[in-house]
């Protein structure tokens, strides 16, 4: 029994005290923590719009209407022994529960966590606590540059520590991982974002393009995703 699988999301009705200024739509947010034993659900977000401002205005004890868990989360193949997760910004919030699920299945995790500066790196401790090997990379010292991340990936692949790739939070990292996934025939998954209205596959507003049988197909991030095959996503 799980409260939510890693990568699944909840759809939050961000109302509260905002009155007429409250956002009309719900806001999708992946679960940062979904602990069935305590019934605790956590979200990690950055305040940058009306929805997150309304969330931040909530006071302890106030109710928040959440719909979910929704969507298809990450899938861990039991044959994998070592996986590499690569994330940036709030994308790390989506990947942290994956690292915990992998640890529970005795899959070793290497986490390349990208941020602008060391003080902006989120969740490194969460990854470390799962036993993951954390490799932080930063814009401030140049270590997050694609060629540097490529060197890290080359070493991990050479050490047979990359049975699968998982990526979230950066189009640039997505393209980079897609290239490595294809060159080295390593499978992968990506968690994608898109503006949503319903979250249940009804409205078809959250579509993104994917490769499908040599053609481009529009798939719903809320329903067919938000986790997709790394190779099929069009960055």
């Amino acid at each position: 029994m799980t409260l939510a699988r890693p990568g699944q999301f909840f759809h939050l009705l961000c109302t509260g005290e905002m009155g007429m200024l409250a956002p009309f739509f719900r806001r999708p947010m992946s679960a940062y923590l979904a602990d069935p034993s305590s019934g605790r659900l956590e979200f990690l977000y950055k305040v940058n719009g009306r929805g997150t401002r309304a969330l931040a205005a909530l006071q302890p004890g106030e109710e928040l209407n959440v719909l979910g868990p929704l969507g298809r989360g990450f899938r861990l193949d039991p044959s994998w022994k070592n996986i590499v997760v690569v994330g940036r910004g709030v994308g790390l919030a989506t990947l942290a529960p994956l690292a915990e699920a992998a640890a529970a299945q005795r899959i070793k995790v290497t986490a390349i966590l990208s941020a602008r500066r060391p003080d902006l790196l989120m969740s490194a401790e969460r990854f470390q606590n799962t036993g993951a090997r954390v490799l932080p990379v930063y814009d401030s010292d140049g270590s997050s540059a694609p060629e540097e991340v490529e060197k890290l990936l080359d070493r991990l692949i050479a050490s047979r520590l990359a049975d699968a790739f998982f990526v979230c939070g950066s189009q640039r990292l997505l393209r980079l991982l897609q290239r490595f996934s294809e060159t080295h025939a390593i499978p992968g998954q990506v968690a994608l974002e898109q503006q949503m209205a319903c979250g249940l596959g009804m409205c078809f507003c959250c579509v993104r393009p994917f490769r499908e049988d040599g053609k481009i197909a529009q798939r719903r991030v809320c329903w067919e995703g938000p986790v997709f095959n790394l190779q099929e996503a069009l960055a």
Partner: protein
Amino acid sequence: MTSRLADVKTDSREPQVDLSVRIGRLTLANPVMPASGTFAEGLEQVFDFNRLGAFVTKTITRDYRSGNPTPRVAETASGMLNSIGIPSKGLATFLSDTLPFYRRYRPPLIVSISAPTAEQFAELARELTVPGIAAIEANISCPNIEADGRAFAMLPDSTETVVRRLRAATELPLWVKLTPNTADIAAVASAAEAAGADALVVANTILGMAVDADTFRPRLGSIMGGLSGPAVKPIILRMTYQAARAVSIPVIGCGGIGTAEDAVEYLLAGATAVQVGTATFLHPNATPEIIDGLATFCCRRGIARIEDLVGALVLDDASLPAAAS
């Protein structure tokens, strides 16, 4: 924190009031159904589909359509702008995959259709005249390529032309969904009735636009889109009233309905049934809650049959225009 998926009740109490309504020769168990494009199989996780008055499908087209560029929606004050662009898997997939899914349930299946010409509308209706489909809802609010992209339902003439072709093509009950972007909803409604429509759906979305003052760009990928949600309710309620006065066939109200009280207002204004759309995007169980709320409303007000509410708007003599008396 509450999770709606977990705590939604599927209330199967027998209503103490008769909620059934007649739409032409179809009898619906209750007057509440989803609006086209705001319903999908995913809602099965949320409530018991057998509670619906009817199913209304997302609009289908004969051939595959990928839909419009993103962003496809924008939120507005108490409303939603959309330009989804009718993505459709096409007729063949509908008949092979979607139709069998809905046949597992009791409520009648209303299939919404769209086509770029009157003849293609008729052809699609003919191909959908098959067992398991209870009625056709012709979405004639879409652009007519024979009229410079103007929607069929903008004018009485083009409405009459397309409805006449549809009427000749199918024996199924024919519902016609009108556009609010017309100057004279009563005239368009009368034209649809004259051409053989069995019911009217009032209405599709109101054409609107949103601009992002930060980026100087339109908020929708296709610049303009249809407004729906609570923001449009007074306008569509007025149009429902005007259409219902103009015709003798049933009118189905559709615009900003989110509560049982909203539905009652539409019935009083002359609607025989209602469609719930945007509200479902915010509250997936809005439709069953409205059905429960209608039963409660009727009980509380001592109304034995919900059809007694249809057109029961109380008008004082003084509020009637002099010319009408």
